[in-house]
């Protein structure tokens, strides 16, 4: 068996007195679609943000592709990483936000090309070609020169996915990517994600779309109160939850 893409051991995180993560234990294998579900406040988004160090963890070990996140271990001691090293690590991890967070002063194309050119210092021609390919992949070639405020929510989220993919990450994090969308726009974003999963991308998806989880997910974790309550193949967990809290949560969400 190959090394896991993400490994979390006893990850703790609190905001002031509020303990949000209470010892998260999980492993995400390379190439798998890993779904995180749970009630709001269960810590799933916070955990996702810890994976690319947007939040720092208080205790435990969190590693991506065999390297610790935010720290270096040397002689049994942890050393905080420099901002430069944190940024370097983040290049390999794409993230898609609930509220898209496209750069409003740049066109869709410029949004996609910004980081590869400025961060990876790739040539504009190479990046342009990749950006065109990505826009085609998310079905928005005709919107290349349009500013985000002229796009629908679904279109914005597809551009945001293309923007993250332009950095050629080995891991993609999705933080409730369809929660801010009108219901009729959810499908187009899920289609893009499904296609990405088929291409073998390792994906961690925080979602309330149980249909997507069941169809596309390889693994599903139910979180509550900052801990993993139960995990397994989505079909098994969704159809036959073992835990009382999982049952009560699933009975409340539409499937």
């Amino acid at each position, binding site marked *: 068996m190959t090394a896991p893409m993400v490994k979390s051991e006893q990850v703790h995180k609190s905001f002031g007195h509020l303990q949000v993560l209470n010892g998260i234990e999980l492993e995400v294998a390379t190439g798998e679609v890993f779904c995180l579900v749970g009630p709001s406040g269960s810590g799933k988004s916070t955990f996702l943000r810890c994976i690319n160090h947007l939040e720092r963890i208080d205790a435990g070990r969190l590693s991506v592709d065999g390297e610790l996140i935010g720290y270096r271990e040397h002689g049994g001691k942890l050393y905080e990483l420099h901002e430069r090293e944190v940024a370097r690590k983040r290049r390999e991890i794409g993230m898609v936000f609930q509220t898209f967070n496209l750069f409003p*002063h740049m066109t869709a194309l410029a949004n996609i090309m910004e980081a590869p050119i400025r961060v990876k210092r790739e040539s504009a021609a190479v990046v342009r070609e990749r950006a065109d390919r990505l826009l085609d992949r998310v079905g928005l070639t005709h919107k290349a020169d349009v500013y985000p*405020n002229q796009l*629908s929510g679904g279109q914005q989220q597809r551009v945001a996915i293309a923007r993250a993919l332009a950095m050629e990450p080995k891991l993609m994090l999705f933080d409730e990517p369809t929660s801010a969308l009108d219901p009729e726009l959810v499908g187009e974003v899920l289609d893009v994600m499904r296609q990405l999963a088929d291409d073998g991308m390792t994906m961690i998806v925080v979602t309330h779309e149980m249909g997507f989880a069941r169809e596309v997910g390889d693994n599903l974790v139910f979180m509550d109160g900052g801990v993993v309550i139960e995990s397994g193949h989505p079909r098994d967990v969704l159809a036959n939850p073992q835990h009382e809290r999982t049952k009560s949560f699933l009975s409340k969400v539409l499937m």
Partner: protein
Amino acid sequence: MSPIKAVPLRHPGRWLTVAAILVLAAMFANALVSNTLFQWDVVGQYFTAETILKGVAQTLYLTLVAMAVGIVLGGILAVMRLSPSPVLSTVSWVYIWFFRGTPVLVQLIFWFNLAALFPELSIGVPFGPTFFSVETNAAITPFVAAILGLGLNEAAYMAEISRAGIQSVNDGQVEAAHALGMRRLLTMRRIVLPQAMRMIIPPAGNETIGMLKTTSLVSIVTLPELLYSAQSIYSRTFQTIPLLIVASLWYLILTSVLTVGQYYIERHFAKGNARTMPPTAWQRLRRNFFTFHSPRPEAPAPSVTSSSGGIR
């Protein structure tokens, strides 16, 4: 469906107000013309006098250089103030506290008299040998004193304006940039500042216009800017009022030009943020003139859409 054809709402109050204003304006114009003490011939004579034009050029130059110093230094101070480093943030806080807390006139006089405090300025190892030294009176000319006084003071205000602009940008923008592997300064330069500009430009325009007038304080350190030039003439000819009118007219002309410039800069930074651009000065003027009675529904205010591509 046929478009609505309604009688436009009447505004009798507006007509009454206009009538009252016209009467007052006529009275004022009459006073301007009939009161010979205004000495309009003297105003005309000195309006384009060489001394005055040189003063105008000096005033413009001072404004531009002092604002350049203020904007650049203010931007740096704002970024320092918001930096996670407590050292940088404290340094910036102390700077703003000091320069905003003392009157700019006092600062000007202080810089002008720096020689009284430090007769010699030198560069070298602290408490060690000196490499280079210059007499303060030679280094701090009235122009240098003016730029130091006006620019360093302005930086404190621009720092606060820039900070407000930077903080108005959504945190999600910074997170998205960081998630793409962008570092703090790159994020600031490419993502945050261009968006903050929309908030920064209007007050910065205000500051520039303020600065144009504040440069008149510099007349006390004998720098021949516009006011000093006017004073130098009337102290000789005793035609005080007409020369002050000359100076005022020039200040008005310069601030008007700056106001127009500001509109165009605002339009530039509105890109991608608004469906419609703010109107240009000309469009504004036209709209104000030609919509005296309420605008018809099918004739909206003139506006330019920000880009190709339709509405969603």
